[in-house]
């Protein structure tokens, strides 16, 4: 068997249809001007030109899923008594994520430590994860806001991927990364990729230096604990935050969730659904007390979780993959990379000018009068 | 004893406590024959009916919604139905924009003595909803 494969550009849809035969294929599809990961079928328009608005995390960690269903049953002897039956399903269909980006794939590795490598593994995440093959498309150019190289990733980073795909002039060079990924070479419509390997590997390196590193001074994020613990810092940098959940819901590494019960008559389900640390109700207790009552405290927790707490727990790994979605899609352009770069500390000039490169307006940028 | 010879559909009725619920009661006591698709929810006043009640019902399985209150100027709380009239009219115009036939929603005013009008309204409305058929025919029912 060949070690690598190649799919001609015009045969990509056919190839995906082949893949769809024994797994649900999730791919970035165009809807209006929005690119979203969804189940690929003949009616969808594939879009591999730019990262999807949402990451593919929903394949392994759906926005909502049933943990178990319950049924209340009346006791035949004593109608006042009810018994309960529970039923959980942790068996999931095979899935393929086609066209994830290296940052997206890395996000799953962040999840794995929390959901699988623990003494109480999560059977839902684990069940889906094991059944999912991740075929990642290398980035040929950074998107606005991207900073993967600053957090240990890169446009052709392999961590978390089962297959790495490189887009070339004529088609797609396909390279298994894991044993699971080798299966892709058996799919019909794939050719031997050997003659393209050299070009692909050259291509993979090209865009690395185009990705910005907002932590250029140190090469990696460095956090001054004194500054991090300063309330005024957070009040200053996140006053414009709207406290919505766009950043967390679009984040390939945000994994917080809520659990709620829904019942109709005697039947119901316990549901797990995405939740976000930017929402006030996330930590609101029954008594009305809220340990993180302000957006400043919540934002501090979000940055802390990604750049301090998670690394503290998991060998220094940063729980941010630098995909830039939270920056690109924030309604008010809150920039987490900028905030973390300020946190280098030890002091923060509250009157800071924006860095030179960001510029202020010039005459030519004036609005017409 | 459905008047309409077809499978029952789900019609939700929001009736004000003071007039329309009494009207429905009058119809019942007078043994007027009525279709049985309607499920009545008694509310203190038509002004209590948040347009979202109607939307929620339609999105969650109802095939039609009927709202009935006291006649204008006859509201038990003086002006509840005046507010209701504006809100319900707004919703009536919004539904087709969403792709939901506005004929699935009807609002009207029926007093406690108008048992006959109640019977007529329920019969006509049920008939109309049956003509339109089930709203959620193609989709699976929401759990």
């Amino acid at each position, binding site marked *: 068997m060949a070690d690598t494969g190649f799919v001609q550009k015009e045969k990509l849809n056919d190839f995906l249809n082949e893949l769809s035969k024994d797994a649900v294929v999730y791919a970035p599809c165009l809807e209006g001007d929005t690119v979203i990961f969804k189940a690929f079928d003949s009616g969808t328009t594939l879009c591999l030109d730019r990262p999807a608005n949402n990451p593919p995390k929903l394949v392994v960690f759906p926005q909502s899923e049933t943990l178990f269903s319950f049924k209340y049953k009346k006791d035949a002897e004593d109608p006042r008594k009810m018994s309960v039956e529970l039923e959980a399903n942790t068996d999931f269909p095979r899935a393929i994520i086609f066209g994830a980006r290296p940052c997206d794939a890395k996000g799953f590795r962040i999840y794995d430590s929390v959901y699988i490598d623990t003494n109480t593994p999560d059977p839902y995440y684990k069940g889906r994860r094991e059944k999912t093959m991740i075929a990642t498309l290398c980035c040929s150019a950074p998107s606005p806001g991207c900073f993967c190289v600053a957090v240990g990733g890169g446009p052709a980073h392999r961590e978390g991927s089962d297959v790495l795909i490189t887009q070339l002039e004529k088609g797609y060079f396909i390279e298994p990364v894991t044993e699971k990924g080798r299966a892709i070479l058996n799919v019909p419509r794939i050719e031997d990729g050997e003659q393209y390997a050299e070009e692909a590997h050259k291509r993979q390196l090209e865009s690395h230096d185009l990705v910005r590193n907002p932590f250029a001074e140190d090469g990696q994020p460095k956090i001054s604990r004194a500054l991090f613990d300063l309330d005024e810092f957070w009040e200053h940098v996140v006053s414009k935050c709207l406290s919505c959940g766009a950043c967390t819901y679009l984040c390939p590494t945000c994994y917080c969730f809520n659990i709620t019960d829904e019942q109709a008559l005697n039947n119901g389900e316990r549901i797990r659904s995405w939740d976000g640390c930017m929402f006030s109700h996330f930590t609101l207790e*029954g008594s009305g007390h809220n340990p993180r009552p302000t957006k400043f405290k919540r934002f501090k927790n979000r940055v802390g979780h990604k750049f301090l707490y998670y690394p503290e727990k998991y060998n220094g790994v940063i729980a941010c993959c630098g995909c830039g979605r939270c920056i690109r899609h924030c309604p008010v352009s809150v920039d987490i990379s900028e905030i973390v770069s300020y946190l280098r500390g030890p002091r923060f000039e509250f009157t800071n000018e924006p860095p030179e490169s960001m510029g202020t307006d010039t005459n030519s940028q004036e609005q017409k009068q | 004893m459905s008047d309409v010879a077809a499978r029952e559909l789900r019609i939700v009725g929001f009736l004000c406590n003071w007039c329309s619920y009494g009207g429905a009661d009058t119809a019942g006591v007078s043994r007027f024959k009525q279709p049985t698709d309607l499920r009545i929810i008694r509310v203190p006043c038509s002004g209590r009916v948040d347009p979202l009640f109607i939307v929620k019902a339609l999105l969650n399985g109802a095939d039609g919604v009927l709202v009935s209150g006291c006649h204008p100027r006859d509201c038990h709380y003086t002006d509840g139905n005046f507010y209701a009239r504006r809100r319900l009219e707004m919703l009536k115009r919004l539904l087709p924009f969403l792709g939901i036939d506005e004929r699935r929603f009807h609002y009207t005013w029926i007093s406690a003595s108008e048992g006959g009008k109640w019977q007529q309204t329920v019969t006509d409305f049920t008939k109309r909803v049956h003509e339109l058929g089930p709203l959620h025919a193609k989709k699976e029912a929401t759990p």
Partner: protein
Amino acid sequence: MTENKNPYLPDLATVIKVIDETPNIKSYQVILNDPEKMKMFSYEPGQVGQLSVFGVGESTFVINSPPTRMDYLQFSVMRVGEVTSVIHELHEGDQIGVRAPLGNWFPYEDMKGKKILFIGGGIGLAPLRTLILFMLDNRADYGDITILYGSRTPPDLCYKDDLKEWESRSDVSLILTVDTEYPGWDKRTGFVPTVLNEIAPSPEDTIAITCGPPIMIKFVLQNLAKLNFKDENIITTLEARMKCGIGICGRCNIGSKYICKDGPVFSLAQLKEYRAEI
């Protein structure tokens, strides 16, 4: 909890007894429906469990009966929110779900041979009760036991039968207080932190364990410091909104520690290290 078990799936359990503790606190004695599971059930004093009312949700409570008395598991529930309100409507025979044990426990091994000072307020006596009963069942292992417990009014005192028993024992010193004068109350009045200052226990060879409303804990900690208790000899339990109970869902953290998994029992020294805001 064993490795392969679905950590989100509760064990079914039956309420066998409901005890009215105070006007807004009830205790529930429950047993797991599976007798084998009930027999094998083991936990440590201070560990918590999630009680489920299916259709409403889950809430976290400490198992306040000690592992030395395994006829049932007892939980005390104050009516505050959606789930607790529904739990308050449960009767004997009703079915609930239990996910337990979760979290860490009191370091009772390290307390052996030491004098123990319990400081509790209101429903905060629940976690202390587990440890008190556990220590009384292993009385010889521990030195003097002092219990300072207070509530708003006498009817708000929990575990009145226990209090009576502890009061009658010669190997326990119990100090009760209520916030203000109350008809028929002939014991101390005043807030718990104030009474703590009045009785001024010696920090010598003593472990202080405190639990109660946040404001009480705050001042108790201040006063213990004034009494020269060392941070590592002050132990408290924390509470937060919890969902998963296994350190994943993200809401109960203080820094990198999750109250549900790494807690709820912490020493003041640890809390200072984690920069917890209390």
